[in-house]
Each structure stands twice: as C-alpha cells, then as structure tokens.
C-alpha cells in the first residue's frame, strides 16, 4: 500500500514537472534575463524579461503551428520596460521560444532557445 502510494506520488510529481514550462536564464554582458514559451487555449506565446538592471532591450518570438504550417512569429521588442511578450492567438501548437537581450553597454546576446 505504502509502495503504491509512493509510486503514485512520484508519478504525479514527475507529471507536474513535465507540464510546467521551465524558465531558462541567460547573460549578455552585465544583463541577466530569462524567458519561456507556452501554449494554451490556441494561443502560442513567448516571454523575455530582464532579471537585473543591466539590460537595455529584450526580444521574444515563438515557433507555432497554424493551418498545418510551422511559423516563426514576429518578435516583440521593448527597451522602455523590462520585459515583452508575444502572443499568437489562433495557433494549433507551439514548441519553442527564442529570446534575446541587449545590455546597457551595448552587448547583444545571441538568440537563446526555450523548450
């Protein structure tokens, strides 16, 4: 009985870890930032946000499926605020996000991927 409960709890915990999208964190010069993507209710989305004060701008774009075609969304962009989000309603699926930041000193990061 105890073993069955333990297996059930472990399975539940693993399932929770698998369905919650994990944020990934990156660094560009003195700028730290993170990002993740999600898909819910036919909306694909990607978020990029600064996690310290060394960032000047951030971008986010999402890879989504619509009408059986996989597409890259246009990237959101901001340098007025600490984060931006791209929401793509009407999507059938989504699998990746791409995230980029510019540091205050002009260091531009590569595009990083969230899964």
């Amino acid at each position: 009985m105890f073993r069955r409960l333990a297996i059930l709890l472990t399975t539940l915990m693993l399932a929770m870890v698998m369905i919650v999208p994990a944020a990934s964190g990156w660094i560009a010069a003195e700028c730290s930032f993170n990002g993740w993507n999600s898909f819910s209710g036919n909306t694909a989305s990607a978020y990029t946000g600064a996690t310290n004060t060394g960032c000047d701008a951030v971008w986010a774009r999402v890879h989504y499926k619509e009408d059986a075609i996989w597409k890259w969304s246009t990237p959101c962009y901001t340098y007025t605020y600490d984060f931006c989000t791209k929401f793509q309603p009407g999507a059938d699926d989504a699998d990746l996000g791409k995230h980029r930041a510019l540091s205050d000193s002009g260091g531009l990061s590569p595009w990083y991927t969230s899964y």
Partner: protein
Amino acid sequence: MFRSLIALTTVALVAIAGCSTSGRDDAASHRIESLLERVGDDMPQSQRSALSDLELTYDEYEAATLATIECMRESGIIVIDLESMNNGRYLGYSHSSSAHDADEPCRREHLAYVEQIWVDQQAPTAAESEEIRAEYQQCLEDAGENPPPDSTFEDLERYVALAGMDGILTDAGFSCAREHSVVNWISDP
C-alpha cells in the same frame, strides 16, 4: 474687463495645450536625433530617410515593415502576411523558414531603428500615464480579471504577461491589452 479675461484665459489654455503636444514632440525628436548621432553612417539609408525629419509617422513605420517583408520575399523566405497587432499599433509578420533568424538581415536593413523609435513612441508619457493606467485597470476589472489594486502601469503589463503565459487571461482581458499594452504584442483577430 470680462472680454479681456476671456481672451487671456483662451491664450493661456492654447499655450498649455501647445506645450503639452510640443513637449511630447520635442522628446520624440530628441530621441530620434540622438539615435541618428549615435548610429551615424551605420544606419541604412532607407531608415535614415524615414527619421531624418526627426519625426516618425505611422505611414513611415508601415512602409519600413512592408519593405522588410518585400526584402525577405526577395531573399526566398516564405512570409505569411503582414500582421497587425494591438489594434494596429504594431505591425509584423510570420515566416516559415527553418532558421528563426532568417529575417535578421532584412530587419537590420529596413526596420530595426525605425521599430525602436516607433515602440518608444507608444509608451505613455508621464503626463499620460495615470489616465491610461486607470483606463487599463478598469478595463481589466470589467473583463473579470483581478489585477492587484492600485497597480502601476508596469504592474498591469506584468499581470497581463503572466496571466497570458499561464493561459488564464480571458479573451476580454486580451482585448484590454490590445487597447492599452505597450509590451504585450497580441495579434489582432
């Protein structure tokens, strides 16, 4: 005496209104001027032309986006339509290349600096901020959302971003964000 008072009041009101508009225009012009100085000759000619009068209009922003799309198509990238976001305040596109950054050369050539200025112009000024914040909060509450009371404009933006990412923002909440948001880019229906 009474007529003089009316004339004086009218002049004062016109002056205040003029200062308010001109203050925003001056700030926008200053930002464009400093960008032109900072980037210098590295700024591509088409974007320099759009910004050289120290003013960026919607038509110029739209033209820069369309030029980007045309450039991508000429490069063999399959572009899926011009996309309108946030009730038309932002423009974009989707593309179906396997490389996510296949559009980068065309963005650098036709759009990057123009977009930077355009996005900056969408942010409310300090004077506009409280009015827009109040409308944004009311809209979200009327939509059945629960943003924290007395949120700042940025708090509301973050609420929309996180609720949207979590899949719990209502369609009406998305409509509010389309109307007011600066950082949440939402495709129009």
